[in-house]
């Protein structure tokens, strides 16, 4: 039994026999209003995997460029922080936030939500974290950053000698694991006690 309303068109919806493993969509506008998530154990494993991939990404260089015998390489955070050196502090903050800090915050929030629930805490105790998670989701753009790197590899490859370092690989794996975590995690399952 689920009593809700469609957040896209506003009609009141009653589902008589609600099954949390099924996907439900609105009878009028066909927007999905319930999407089944994976089990919290699996999500937790994926979130930790993703976090472990992030650790080497912080200090490994992404790529190295060579022009006339001079070498230069950057790490993930250095790349966006160059905006600050050019005098555009605000872009540096937005790019670092959307590309790195917010995805990482989402990951930490998922872990901070699931861990207490596993140890028997009530859903009410983590509801502030849930709200932060929902409000931050539209601002995570790590995958855009990765595609940006691929574009610049082609652009720079035409200018100078370029080779890819381990930082790019670990960032790629981080994003893959992060993506799976976020797709698996349905924050509304927090309120379905049988999921925990």
């Amino acid at each position, binding site marked *: 039994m689920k009593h809700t309303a469609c957040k896209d068109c506003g009609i009141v919806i009653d589902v008589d026999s609600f099954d949390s493993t099924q996907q439900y969509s609105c009878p009028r506008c066909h927007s999905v209003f319930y999407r089944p998530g994976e089990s919290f154990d699996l999500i937790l494993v994926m979130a930790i995997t993703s976090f472990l991939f992030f650790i080497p990404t912080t200090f490994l260089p992404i790529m190295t460029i060579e022009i006339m015998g001079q070498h230069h390489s950057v790490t993930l955070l250095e790349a966006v922080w160059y905006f600050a050196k050019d005098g*555009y502090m605000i872009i540096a903050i937005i*790019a670092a936030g959307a590309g790195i800090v917010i995805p990482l915050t989402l990951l930490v929030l998922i872990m901070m939500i699931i861990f207490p629930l596993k140890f028997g805490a009530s859903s009410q105790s983590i509801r502030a974290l849930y709200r932060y998670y929902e409000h931050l989701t*539209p601002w995570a753009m790590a995958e855009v950053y990765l595609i940006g790197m691929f574009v610049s590899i082609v652009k720079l490859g035409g200018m100078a000698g370029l080779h890819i370092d381990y930082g790019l690989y670990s960032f790629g794996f981080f994003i893959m694991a992060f993506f799976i975590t976020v797709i698996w995690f349905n924050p509304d399952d927090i309120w379905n006690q049988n999921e925990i």
Partner: protein
Amino acid sequence: MKYKTDISEGKVLCHLCELLHDDKEHECSQCGEKLHQRLPDSLAQTWGYLLAATLFLIPANLLPMMVVTAMGTEDASTIMEGVVYFFHHAEYGLGGVIFIASVAVPVFKLGVIYYLLLVVQFKQHDKAMGGLKLFHIIHVIGKWSMLDIFVVAMMVSMVQFQGLATIETGGAAIAFCAAVIFTIIASEKFDPRLMFDNEVIKEEEVK
């Protein structure tokens, strides 16, 4: 067919956890979010952010995105010149990606939000379903317009060889960034339910 809506039933939906409450309540009993039947000042805020985004898109396309200094000569290129660069070097795929992400997507998003606002303002309820599809599309593609900012970040940070070749951020970056951010806020502030509101009454009149 007649539908019951949250307004006609005197209910209010929590926009985060989707629990249905009585419309006298002010805070969601489940997640603690403030309750609003419709997003507060949705139209005014969407118009405001949308106009700001539109204005910022003009300098974003006119000013240079990157300033390349190689062997003493300075070369500033705008977003479109960057796309043209790829096409000249026969990188059609990448040129296409950059064109879609930094020109087509931002303009398409702005166009869609203007359209949605007009659907609400002129009460075109029969266009609500199509509008909702477009609304879902811009939610998915919205963040990809940041692509050029990250490309510039990589280019600027990698090409730092004093005396040989350096790349500096151009003024368009900040305008473009602002345009993208304001467009995302505008689409977050827009409440798609406004397109459907009062449709029930209209249907009853027909019968």
